[in-house]
């Protein structure tokens, strides 16, 4: 296995192609749940978990069910269907067997059922022609990237809370401005990862 290739996929998913800050997917939890650090972390861990699960399930469906039968055009709807039921199933299982984990992740799971970042990861894995292992690594990286963005942004937001914001910018406007600046900062990392292993 090409370890270096996997490492590049992982790191570029975290830093370069960050789902929230570069591809603008999964913005709603990014703005909605990033107010407090522990909530942001809880949500992100749930997203990492669901991204991995979703990739593990949707990859075989694409390769062994849709592709051989020329049903590639059903990709989006089938993935939504499968991911939504999968997350529901995971929630039921967690509730029954690991109540403590359900308590900390449970509230976020229904939020993720149709999250575009999760759907985006599974579909991009296919379009990038990744192998199964590469897909899993990419999902892990995307999840970690989401985690990084959420945790960073919750820090930024806690700073904003104490800042003296002009009245017209209070609330959502200043949050969006902060989000765009945070996203700009990630632009500076472009090209770093590829050259790291050159």
């Amino acid at each position: 296995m090409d370890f270096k290739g996997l490492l590049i996929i992982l790191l570029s998913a975290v830093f370069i192609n960050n789902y929230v800050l570069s591809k603008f997917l999964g913005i709603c939890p990014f703005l909605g749940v990033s107010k407090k650090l522990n909530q942001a972390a809880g949500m992100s861990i749930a997203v990492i978990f669901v991204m991995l699960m979703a990739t593990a399930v949707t990859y075989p469906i694409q390769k062994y069910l849709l592709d051989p039968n020329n049903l590639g055009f059903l990709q989006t709807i089938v993935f939504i269907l499968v991911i939504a039921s999968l997350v529901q199933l995971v929630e039921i299982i967690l509730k029954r067997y690991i109540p403590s984990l359900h308590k900390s992740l449970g509230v976020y799971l229904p939020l993720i059922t149709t999250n575009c970042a999760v759907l985006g990861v599974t579909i991009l894995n296919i379009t990038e022609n990744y192998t199964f292992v590469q897909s899993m690594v990419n999902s892990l990286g995307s999840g970690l990237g989401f985690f990084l963005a959420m945790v960073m942004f919750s820090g930024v937001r806690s700073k904003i809370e104490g800042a003296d914001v002009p009245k017209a910018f209070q609330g959502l406007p200043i949050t969006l401005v902060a989000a765009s600046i945070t996203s700009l900062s990630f632009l500076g990392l472009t090209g770093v990862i590829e050259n790291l292993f050159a």
Partner: protein
Amino acid sequence: MNETLTAVLTAVIPIVIIGIICAVVLVVASKVMAVKENEKIPAIRECLPGANCGACGFAGCDGYAKALAEGETTATNLCVPGGDTVSKKISEILGVEFEDVVEQVAVIHCAGDCKYTQDRVEYSGIQSCAAAKLIFGSKGDCPYGCLGFGDCLKACPNNAICIENGIAHVNTKLCVGCGLCTKACPNGLISLMADVERVVVTCSNKDKGAVTRKACKNGCIGCKKCEKVCSQNAIKVVNNLAVIDYSKCPDCDDFGACARECTTGCIMLSDFSGIHRVK
């Protein structure tokens, strides 16, 4: 025709099959791995009005039912819109003693209608109090007063609020005391008050007397006359605004003196009996 049909079927059938498989798995999983829920929760939930207003302090009626059933709270009298009847039913289910509900009504602490104050600007933007407040702070002379676009009216589930002469009024006979309007008012003019009270300060202006007077003839100028006439020391002028401590009102021997003596008439005497006392 046949080709179209085949094309449609090739798309529909796999989706339906996958959907059915997912549905069956989920149903089986939810039956097999069902977690036993406290059977009191649906019973209590049944009694509650289902307005999800949050007056009890929990996240909706479901949250309150859960908190009661699991012993998080023992207070059966938190549902203000439900009143005594709901409290009685819940107490029966839980087998605890019935607690009286303090029925509340919303009161608007502003009476500066178009007779007493005038508009400072001509506002023609979005017809909402929150939007108008964002732009100029207020459209009238008084920066504390009712904006009159009816954000509270829109929040009210019982149509208990109306806008008359440019300010909001509560019809207490329709008010269930859910408190949704208190959150909707951008100036925080609305508060909940036990519906047995009879006096209320109908002003929220915290400016000094002269400034208030200029803005609105109904405004509290902080003259402290009410402080002096109150036999129970229940009224205090805080930040140039009279505040009534209702806990001392029941002992009052000259009831209504504060309203009678108020120099601007911003303390009003009235009947605020709510919906629960209408026979």
